[in-house]
Every structure is written in C-alpha cells, then in structure tokens.
C-alpha cells in the first residue's frame, strides 16, 4: 500500500491539535461558566466535536501506519511485522505502551463528545463545567503522550521488517478487550466530571444523581464486559485452565469495578432518598481515581509486576505525577466543598438504604483488601517493617468472608422498602425465599455430594439471589405494577452475579485435571471421559509453524469430540513455542486440552482439564453487562436533566 509520506508527522500534528482543542475548551468553558458568558458557553459543543475529530484523525493515522507497515515509525517497527495478519496488526496499535495511552486519550475524547451531544437538556453552565473538567483531563494526558511517549516518533535507521507483537497477544482478544476496558475506565471520567461539577456548584440533589446514573451504568457496563473478556482470554490463551490470577494488572482492573459497583448503588439511594450525598461524590471521585491507577499504576513501573510495561522510570514518574495531580486536586476540592452537602432524609436500620449502605461498606472493604494485597510489599518496604509477598491465597481468604455477606445482601436488598421496612411484613417473604433456596440447596447436595461447605455456601448464595429475584418479580406482577427497564436491568444484573457465583463455586469444586504423556494411539482417562491421541501434524499459519494434535474424546465408549490443541512457533521467536488450547465448550462443562512438548520417544506432553460450569462465570458477567444496558436505556434517564 502506498502511504502518504508525512503521515506520522500529520498524526502528531492532529494529536497536538486535539490537545490544544481540549485545553482551549477547558479554559474557555471554565471562564464562560464562571462569568455566565452566553456566547462562549455556546462554543462548548463545537469545541467538543473539534477535539474528538482531531483525536480520531490522529488515531486513524496510527492505524494507517500499522496497516501500511510503515517501519520508519519506531512504535510500528517494534510491534508489528509484515507477516502478521491485518486484524492483529491493527490491534497491535494498542498492544504497546504508546498506543494504549493514545487509545485512552481517544476514548476520553469520545466520551467528551458523547456528553456534549447528550447534554442538551442540562443547564449550559453545568454542561460547560462538565466538559471543561473532561477537557482538562484529556489535555493533560494527550500532552503527556505527545511529550513522553510519542507513538509517531521516527527511527533513524529504517528496518526492512518490524519486530513482532508478543505472540500471546496475537488473538481476537487483543482487538476487543483493551478498547472495552478503556471505554469503562474513561467512562468513569464522565462521572468524575459530574461529581466535580456538583462540588463546584454545591448542588448534589436528585436531579444530579439522576443525571449521573446512566453514565455510571454505561461505564460500569463497559468495564464489566472488558474485565470478563480479559478473564476469558487469559483462560483460553494462557493454557493453565485458570480464569483469574490476582495479578497486579487484574487487581488494578477489579478495584475500579468494585468501587463503580458501590457507586451504582449509592447513587440509587442518593437519587431516590437524597441520602449519602457526600459519600456518593467521594465514591465518584475514588472510582475514577482507581480507574486511573488501574490504567497507569501498573504501566508506571511502581509495581514491579511480571507484566512490567515501561522500563523508563522517568516516564513512570510523569504518569504518576499527572494522575496524582488529578486525584489530589479533586480530593482537595472535596475537602473544601463537601461540607455544604447535607442529607435530606433519615432511614431506619432495616430499610433499603441500610442495605445499600452495607453493600457499599462491603464493596469498599473488598477494594481496600485488594489494594492492600497489591501494595503490601511496597507498603511494608516504605515503612521499613520487613518484607512479605502476597499471593492468591491471601485474596481468596480475605475476599470470601466479604463476598458471602455481599451475596446475601444482593438477595435481601430489593425485598426491602425505602426508609423503613417493618420486620413483620418482611418475615413471610423471607420465609418463602429461604424455603425455596434452602430446599433446592438440600436437593442439590443430595444429588451431587459437594466436596466442601464452601461449595454448599456458594450454591446456596446463588440460589438465594435467584429465588429472591423470582419472589420480587412475583410481587410486582401480583401488584399489577409495570416493570421498568431500570428494575429489570437490576434484576438481570443480580441474576448475572448469581450465575457467576454458581460458576465459580462449581467449577472450583468439580474440576479435574491431568498432566500426562501420550504416544500416538495411547489414551488416558479423566472422570467420565477418555482422551486418545490420534495424531500430531505439522502445519503452516500466516506467521507461524504449528504442530496440531488430534485428540479424540470418548464418553462412556461413545466418540464425543475431536480436540485439536496446537503448539505454535512464531517466525519472530521460533525458540518460544506458544500453546493454543483446544476447548470443547458446552453450557455445563468444558473439556480443555493443551499440547506441551514432544518427548524423545515420540510421545507428547498433554495437559487435560474437565471444567464443569466454568462458562457460567462469563455468562454471568454478560448478564450483568446486559442488565446495565437495560437500566441505562430506561426512559426516566432520557427525560433526566430537564429538572434542576
């Protein structure tokens, strides 16, 4: 493909234009909002459009450079080569540090545009303050990108071909996972800006909360989908059969998710009952802060993880300083202004507000535990208290006692009334729900002989949530009330949580695995299944050589499936083969095979897993995201903003 000669320079120019537009937008709109300058306020939307156009143009240049294999650009030469298929070359645009930072700025500018378009009904001053806050954040990151990690920098000596993106990343997961995750992270910038605006104007009321809710839900939905997709990707690509590893990168993404979930619930209380105002605003600030930490802490090199991305400590320091500036400034504003916020109403210890409070406390304790586990080594070192390393056992032990009551709250909360719930009125309903889920749990325990109390607790919690949803829907129907999209979305998301819980509990309890060697024609038994190695054939992919095994799976003597796990040797790194797992995925179980190394006598190392119910983990996450979508499109929110 012929490339325009100055495409990289043009891309950088557009990037700088985008940064300038954002900066001008921020300064102009803060000024206009302060002086109520009608003419300048009217510039909000054109400026938002302009900065988005410049940022997308710049990103399009980057994509074009990858599509056209322009190896005169350092970032392209380091992350792609001509043998890589086009979709992965385009995905490689965000496979490295510079590009992922640019994707982040692009998505921030996209959210800014969406806010500008969807805020027609907001007062012009409020809209200007929100857009100005977002513009300031956007300008900061774009300038940082151009100054310290310019993706368009040229190489002095142009290589004939580029290096290659890490083969582990050459997967459809790369194309969808980072954009979804970053959409979530960047979406919380909107909520953050809304919170800042609320603090500036001192008006945090039902209308404010109603306007903040759909944005929170949307960001949360993207984050949910992004994390779930990342976990699914790790599950099939890493070949360990695991789906969550408590790696610092994963922890960094789960923390804003937990806080965002807390925020969703406290916003509900703030909108309906005018309570928790200070807390909700603080949560909105914290959620975005953790999203920033999630996106950048790991990249800054502060946390030396095996996923170390940057080796340049100066770059890490710059990102850390910008992030710190944003967070510190917003918390300072909070300290100065939040005392003006007062709750409108009171509530009884047994009420929906109280349950939402419990939900918030549990989610925040969970976040704090994850943060502590991730930073513990760093913290002890800083305090000179000795050394310790923290692994998955810490997280599992600490989070389990937090999540179990959280699951119980999830079932209980929607049964309660706002303000005050009479215990006498609640007890019969609770009795019915308990009878239903207790009975089902007993029946299940009798049929499947669960290996541990934890499994029973997991199944009980999932059934508890499911039964309570059924009960709530029944009540609704009997009362003849319409089911709003928001309520349907809530129940669907809660059902998703139940499904994920069941998936986690059951796959942990009943999984089987074996690590064995098989000669051609030999077989091995795993549970009800028999696996025989039929053949191992050599093949050729677009940029790799592959050995593909054919493994016949038998169930009780009947042929079931042929699994074809691969061992790929990429041209760029022939001495590091990549294992591609083969998974026979059904709704109730996965059969999972990975091919290890050939052994001298002609046999192959093979790792086989039987993973029951594991797909429920991601199906549940999909239901949660879908529930978010339903709630976000509720009519109430489309009318929102007319008030205030």
């Amino acid at each position, binding site marked *: 493909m012929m490339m325009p000669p100055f495409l990289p320079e043009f891309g950088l120019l557009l990037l700088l234009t985008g940064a300038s537009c954002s900066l001008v937008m921020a300064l102009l709109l803060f000024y206009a909002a302060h002086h109520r300058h009608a003419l300048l306020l009217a510039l909000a939307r054109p400026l938002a459009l302009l900065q988005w156009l410049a940022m997308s143009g710049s990103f399009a240049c980057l994509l074009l450079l990858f599509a056209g294999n322009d190896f005169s650009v350092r970032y392209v030469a380091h992350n792609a080569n001509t043998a890589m298929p086009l979709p992965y070359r385009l995905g490689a645009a965000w496979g490295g540090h510079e590009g992922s930072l640019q994707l982040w700025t692009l998505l921030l500018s996209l959210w800014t545009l969406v806010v500008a378009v969807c805020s027609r009904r907001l007062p012009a001053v409020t809209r200007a303050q929100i857009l100005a806050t977002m513009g300031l954040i956007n300008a900061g990151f774009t300038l940082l990108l151009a100054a310290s990690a310019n993706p368009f920098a040229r190489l002095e000596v142009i290589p004939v071909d580029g290096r290659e993106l890490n083969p582990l990343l050459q997967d459809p997961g790369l194309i969808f996972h980072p954009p979804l995750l970053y959409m979530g992270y960047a979406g919380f910038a909107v909520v953050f800006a809304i919170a800042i605006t609320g603090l500036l104007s001192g008006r945090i009321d039902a209308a404010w909360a109603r306007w903040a809710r759909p944005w929170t839900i949307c960001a949360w939905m993207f984050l949910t989908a992004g994390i779930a997709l990342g976990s699914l990707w790790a599950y099939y690509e890493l070949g360990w059969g695991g789906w969550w590893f408590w790696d610092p990168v994963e922890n960094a993404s789960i923390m804003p998710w937990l806080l965002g979930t807390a925020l969703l619930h406290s916003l509900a209380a703030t909108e309906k009952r005018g309570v928790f105002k200070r807390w909700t605003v603080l949560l909105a600030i914290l959620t975005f802060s953790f999203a920033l930490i999630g996106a950048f802490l790991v990249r800054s090199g502060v946390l*030396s993880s095996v996923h170390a991305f940057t080796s340049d400590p100066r770059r890490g320091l710059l990102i850390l300083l910008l992030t710190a500036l944003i967070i510190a400034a917003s918390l300072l504003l909070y300290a100065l202004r939040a005392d003006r916020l007062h709750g409108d109403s009171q509530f009884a210890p047994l009420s929906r507000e109280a349950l939402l409070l419990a939900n918030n406390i549990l989610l925040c304790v969970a976040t704090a535990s994850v943060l502590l586990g991730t930073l513990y080594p760093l913290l002890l070192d800083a305090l000179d208290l000795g050394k310790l390393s923290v692994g998955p056992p810490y997280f599992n032990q600490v989070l389990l006692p937090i999540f179990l009551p959280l699951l119980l709250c999830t079932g209980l909360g929607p049964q309660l009334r706002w303000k005050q719930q009479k215990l006498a009125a609640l007890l019969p309903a609770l009795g019915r729900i308990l009878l239903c889920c207790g009975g089902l749990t007993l029946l299940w325990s009798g049929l499947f002989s669960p290996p541990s109390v934890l499994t029973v607790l997991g199944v009980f919690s999932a059934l508890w949530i499911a039964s309570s949803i059924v009960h709530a829907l029944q009540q609704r129907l009997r009362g003849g009330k319409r089911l709003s999209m928001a309520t349907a979305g809530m129940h669907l998301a809660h059902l998703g949580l139940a499904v994920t819980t069941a998936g986690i509990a059951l796959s942990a309890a009943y999984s089987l695995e074996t690590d064995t060697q098989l000669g051609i024609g030999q077989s091995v038994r795993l549970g009800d299944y028999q696996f025989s190695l039929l053949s191992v054939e050599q093949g050729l992919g677009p940029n790799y050589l592959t050995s593909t095994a054919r493994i016949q799976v038998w169930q009780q003597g009947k042929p079931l499936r042929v699994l074809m796990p691969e061992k790929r040797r990429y041209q760029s790194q022939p001495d590091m083969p990549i294992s591609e797992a083969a998974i026979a995925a059904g709704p109730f179980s996965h059969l999972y095979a990975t091919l290890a190394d050939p052994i001298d006598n002609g046999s192959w190392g093979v790792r086989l897993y039987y993973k029951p119910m594991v797909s429920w983990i991601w199906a549940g996450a999909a239901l949660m995201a879908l529930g978010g979508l339903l709630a976000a499109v509720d009519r109430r929110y489309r009318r929102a903003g007319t008030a205030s």
Partner: protein
Amino acid sequence: MKPKHGKSWLLVLPLLGFLGLLWVFLHGLQRDPHALPSSWIGRPAPLFVLPRLDAPAQTFSPAMLRGRVWLLNVWASWCESCHTEHPTLMQLAQHDGLAIVGLNQQDVPDAARAWLAKAGNPYLWSVMDRDARVSIDYGVYGVPETFVIDQAGIVRYRHLGSISPQDARDILLPLIRKLQA
C-alpha cells in the same frame, strides 16, 4: 440513622489517605529492593522444563541439578539492576561446586546472548522464560531476583533485587558453604 451534619474535618481524610498512598508510590519508584521471604522457602523448588538460551533445542529442568547447591537467578538484558549485579555473579560463579542457572525473563534471545557475549557468562545455563510463566510459578516479584536451592531441590533463600558484593560475602556465600558442608 440520622443524616450527618458538620464534622467537616473528616472530609480531609480522603486527601490525607491519598497523599499517604502517593508517598508509598514515590518511595516505591526509588526503592532499593532486598531480600523478600518467599512462600517457597523450605519447600521443593517448582519444577519446569524450559529451552536453553545457548541451544534452544536443548532443555533444562531443575531435576538435572539434584545433588548440587545452585542459584536460580532471574535476569534480562533490558534490566539495569541485572547489569549492576553481573560482576558479583561472575565472582560467585568461581565458587567451587556452585552452579548458577539464569532464568532469562521476557527477553529477546539475541539481545540476551549478545549481553552475555559482551559482559561474560556466569551461568552454567540460562533458560528462556519468555512469557514469565515459570517466574510467576516462583512468585518472582521483579527482576533481578535470586533463589538458593539445595542438593535436595529445596528453596533455601530468596534474594530480591541485585546482589551487591556485600550481599554475596555476608549472606549468600556463608549460606552456600553451610549447605555444601
């Protein structure tokens, strides 16, 4: 529960908490890592099979060093602190009966080989842990990191960060002599 009024000094707490966290981060950026006890100490070193850096067709497994005291040193050519500890490793390699195995983590093989050719090779073998899976199994916290493993394949000590000549003289060598005795 009553809605809260007043107590505005509480509102400064988030800011103070964050500044504390920031102090930890800034400290972390310039921290000097040293020994970090590992959950593997006193337990058999996790087994693995990885291709050798010098001859990718050959593999190495910890089982091959049964009966010897050896060091597993996690390194990479891109890692500055590894360059700092390199002369010390060269000296340690002189110690009788001690084998040093390099776990070359997330590195480009050519760059790694070029570095060893230039700076000298203290390793009996280096093996390539390109995707860091073995490092994850060992709970490696950062590069460089060194494990002392005894004749029975039990992890005896873990050293985080680069080994200074003092570390080698005061900690590692006495321990190695004791294990060899």
